[in-house]
């Protein structure tokens, strides 16, 4: 049994939309998916475990051990339900990625989902952060998206569970839209990654534009400002340290 599913709450009715965002470049797709769950006070619907996940467990600060898993949340949005599928780690094989995507899609379609949105990110420069491009299940939908001002992705591969999910959903005739943002990954001098909240915000804005969803973005806007000022401070500090080091050593010895 390579896959195990645990349903943790009652199945909702009238689900039309599934959104998926996985941890990836800049962590932006995952942040966007989590933001939807937090804003709509989502409830955990199912956890899926796979034998194809990396062979390790996570131990929390409190000393509690947890298997690698992915989660499906249900969020009540007015009279409808929104499903959010997210995870931190990818199964290590295409077969494992396929099984996981298929399982999530099967749960979603049984609950009535007809539209799938994939949040994804591609690494780029700081200027690329938040630039959204789209790909979708058919040419007619692509034309509609272009009319709304979205740029299409020309040639690209969405890898892992989300790619499989996009491909399988399209194949099964679901209205599938991939929102792909450019993202910039900043690392602190100690090597820690600063998540790209600007790209996450851009994903959420594009999603709201496409679905007409009313979402309060003030919390993530504050996050963007904080991230920007944090990076600016770090950069200023780096410049100051470099200047001080050069002054102390009298500049490079080979410059006379």
């Amino acid at each position, binding site marked *: 049994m390579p896959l195990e599913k645990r349903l943790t709450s009652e199945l909702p009715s009238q689900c039309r939309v599934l959104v998926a965002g996985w941890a990836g470049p800049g962590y932006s797709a995952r942040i966007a998916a989590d933001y939807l769950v937090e804003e709509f006070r989502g409830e955990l619907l199912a956890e899926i475990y796979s034998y194809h996940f990396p062979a390790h467990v996570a131990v929390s600060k409190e000393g509690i051990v947890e298997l690698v898993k992915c989660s499906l949340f249900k969020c009540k949005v007015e009279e409808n339900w929104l499903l959010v599928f997210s995870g931190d780690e990818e199964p*290590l*094989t*295409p*077969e494992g*990625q*396929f*099984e996981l995507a298929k399982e999530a899609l099967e749960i979603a379609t049984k609950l009535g989902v007809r539209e799938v949105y994939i949040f994804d990110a591609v690494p780029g420069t700081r200027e690329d952060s938040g630039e959204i491009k*789209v*790909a*979708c*299940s*058919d*040419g007619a939908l*692509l034309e509609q*998206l272009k009319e709304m001002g979205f740029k*299409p*992705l*020309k*040639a*690209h*591969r*969405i*890898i*892992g569970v*989300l*790619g*499989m999910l*996009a*491909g*399988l959903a*399209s*194949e099964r005739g679901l209205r*599938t839209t*991939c929102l792909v943002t450019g993202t910039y990954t900043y690392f602190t001098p100690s090597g820690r990654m600063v998540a790209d909240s600007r790209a996450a915000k851009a994903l959420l804005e594009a999603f709201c534009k496409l679905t007409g969803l009313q979402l309060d973005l003030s919390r993530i806007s504050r996050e963007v400002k904080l991230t920007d000022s944090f990076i600016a401070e770090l950069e200023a500090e780096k410049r100051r340290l470099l200047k001080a080091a050069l002054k102390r050593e009298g500049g490079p010895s080979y410059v006379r």
Partner: protein
Amino acid sequence: MSGDFTWVKIHKEVKARKALAASPGLRSVGFLVVNEIVRCLKSELVAEIFSAHFPVIYQSMPSYSPQPELPGIGGCIIDEGVVRLPSVKIFWCSEAGLLVVVGYHANFNGQYEVARKVLDLLKSMGVEELYVLAAHAKHEGGEICCAAVASDLLEVFKGKTGLQPCSTGPFLGFSGLLFGLAQSYKMKAVALFSKTEPDYDNPEIPDPRAAIRLLDFLNKVFGLAVKPSKELVEAAKAIEAERRPKGLTYF
């Protein structure tokens, strides 16, 4: 691995006695040829084989030499803004009465499963003769060589075309398995190899000259009228020009 990792989607029911098949193998020669045939003969996509064993990023190099510990990464392919899963495609060329299989390499876990699924489908479509197109890199071999699944079949083919066998050794990947397994489906399977020079850094980099040569041969033998595309002819000319040292008038 269980069978539901690979599935077939039929777009149109057709019957044909002959099929050509190739995949992106050595210098992608066969792959270039089948794509040229599909393009030129205005072929119709009649079936697709999808599989969870199809990576969109291969970890093994080349893609047609799968390793058990390198399964690749799954996902989808985006082409001009439209999402699609990787697949083996079967086209129907009504002008020539041929089915054309454009292959895709599965990873180690799925290579036999995919080849069998394709052969099951071809059998159900009435295919009796299968021609697998590829390349060889033998110095001593002819410009085009052949191999077959049985010696009597090979003799008949040699007599009809004047070709000789030359490519001894393993025939890797999707095309190799399709060719080898065709025997158990009682198909008359012949492989045609066009001579190429291996590129050890990038084994799948296309060789348009070898492809044009194989296409010419198929035009003669199968009575096709496939004109190589402008891009293919220009790429072949560019390679020829690169090979000729500049400034040496006596060359």
